[in-house]
């Protein structure tokens, strides 16, 4: 299929704006062909995941853009990198990786991106609105933007994110088009008890199941209470994008494109799957397979903790101290950390034994000081990926279980919660 380009787009492709822009446009056009798009669409905003160091190829790519005189043409935020620039001493990796990761970060800043270094750009003050076309990478940000904000981004990954930011264009395809944003599977959680649905830890478990059940379909979730928070929906989406390819979900009655189930499905019939308490328990158990029983670390903030989540932790830990045998990390964005500091939460948490990590995350880079024993997290995404990435054994748990365990210095479970 041929993609029809405007004269401006043709000029970018032909190298009139430099070889960097031409390479970016080649990627956008080739992706448009692969997706069967008839044309390109302008975007207002981009979020870049390519700034996380995975090897020399990432540097080779950004160098091509920098040497080719490319610059971003829309406001562009940066995802987490491998380093914490505010707390550089936390990085326990080798110097070669530190230097390479720094060079990569500098490359993206040189292209005109903002030094936000967060996987949760939707927690910034200004965020995309309903119906806005954007080019976001980072799977949890994609699912949040589409589902909770109603902004439109396809499931973009590394390279195409910066290519879209440089050209200001994406293929007119996929989740940018209304007809591809409808639900075709219904997940019914209304059988779960009010108590369970009032627990934040249930949302990542619903997400884990949604990711697995939906495949490439968009699920509409029915039965979530009106009290469901943005933090809950964030955790749900992040988990679904880990266990599967979830790029969008509708929470009926909660998210902007799903005032009713009919609105979410466009009136078309959809298969229904019922989620039971036993399913939730099984999902939790699956993310809690360990051989050791010695707890060594607690890791919160994947995706980056919001101001309200830091507030919840502050309340949960109130007056207690983290046990000396436990390393307790909270990953968050530097803007959120500054705001939590203004609210007076950071100092007491640090005094209680909490280490704040910014600009990066404890499951993608060597920060956790003891990777023997068991690491606990309130994030399904962390529990899912950390074993492969940093070689720990992980347990998924609720925030309260994480705090109780950190204080006691051993794994504390509230099995009543999960029954």
């Amino acid at each position, binding site marked *: 299929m041929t993609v029809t380009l405007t004269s401006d787009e043709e000029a970018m492709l032909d190298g009139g704006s430099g070889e960097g822009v031409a*390479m970016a446009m*080649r*990627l956008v056009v*080739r*992706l448009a062909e*692969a*997706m069967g798009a008839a044309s390109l669409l302008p975007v207002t905003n981009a979020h870049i*995941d*390519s700034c*996380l160091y*995975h*090897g*020399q*190829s*990432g540097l*080779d*790519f950004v160098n*091509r853009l920098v040497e080719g005189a490319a610059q971003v043409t829309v406001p562009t935020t940066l995802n987490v990198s491998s380093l914490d620039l505010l707390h550089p001493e936390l990085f326990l990796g080798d110097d070669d990786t530190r230097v390479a990761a720094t060079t990569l970060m500098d490359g993206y800043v040189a292209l005109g991106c903002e030094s936000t270094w967060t996987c949760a750009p939707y927690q910034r003050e200004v965020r995309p609105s309903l119906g806005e076309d954007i080019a976001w*990478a*980072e*799977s949890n940000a*994609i699912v949040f933007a589409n589902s909770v904000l109603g902004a439109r981004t*396809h*499931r*973009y*990954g*590394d*390279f*195409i*994110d910066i290519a879209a930011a440089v050209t200001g264009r994406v293929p007119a395809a*996929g989740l940018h088009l209304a007809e591809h944003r409808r639900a075709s599977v219904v997940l019914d959680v209304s059988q779960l008890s009010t108590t369970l649905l009032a627990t934040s830890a249930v949302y990542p478990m619903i997400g884990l199941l949604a990711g697995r059940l939906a*495949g*490439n379909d968009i699920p509409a979730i029915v039965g979530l209470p009106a009290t469901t928070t943005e933090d809950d929906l964030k955790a749900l989406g992040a988990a679904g*994008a*880990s*266990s*599967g*390819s979830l790029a969008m979900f509708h929470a009926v009655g909660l998210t902007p494109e799903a005032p009713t189930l009919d609105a979410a499905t466009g009136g078309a019939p959809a298969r229904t799957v019922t989620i039971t308490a036993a399913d939730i328990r099984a999902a939790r158990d*699956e993310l809690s397979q360990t051989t050791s029983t010695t707890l060594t670390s607690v890791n919160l903030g994947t995706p980056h903790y919001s101001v309200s989540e830091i507030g919840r932790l502050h309340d949960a830990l109130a007056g207690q101290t983290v046990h000396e045998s436990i390393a307790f990390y909270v990953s968050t964005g530097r803007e959120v950390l500054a705001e939590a500091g203004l609210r007076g939460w950071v100092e007491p948490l640090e005094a209680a034994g909490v280490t704040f990590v910014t600009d990066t995350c404890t499951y993608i880079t060597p920060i956790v000081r003891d990777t023997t024993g068991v690491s606990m997290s309130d994030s399904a995404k962390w529990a*899912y*990926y950390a*074993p*492969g*990435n940093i070689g720990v054994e992980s347990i998924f748990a609720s925030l309260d279980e994480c705090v109780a365990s950190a204080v006691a210095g051993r794994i504390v479970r509230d099995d009543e919660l999960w029954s």
Partner: protein
Amino acid sequence: MTAEVTPVVPGTASGPAIVLDEPVSLWGGFDAETGCIIDRQHPQLGVCLTGAIVFMRSGRGSSSASSVLAESVRLGTAPAAFVIEQPDEILVLGSFVGEELYGITTPVVIAEPSLSGDITTGTTITLDASTLRWSLP
């Protein structure tokens, strides 16, 4: 035996088939240094995909998968080709960039879901643009 497939990243390749029981997320689930599966939840943990024609239902997980594929192309640990059932842009992008930077094509083609039933791990496969060829054991 032959089957027609739809090339998304066109090219030629040959090698042994590896039919994945579940999709693997290249990022977090695959090690570009070794070319092997490291996802502890994956039924084929430890299986190496280097030089293989990898059959999987779809892509999976994180948007960093493009980078991991490009890096494995650079290191020479990448699969020879991907045969998937549903289009996956993140995989396709990794392949495009491997081609832009290193001039090495990792073809990605779309096949009918029924095909993976006919092909078992170890079958030698040749991919030529839109045709897959293999011999029955």
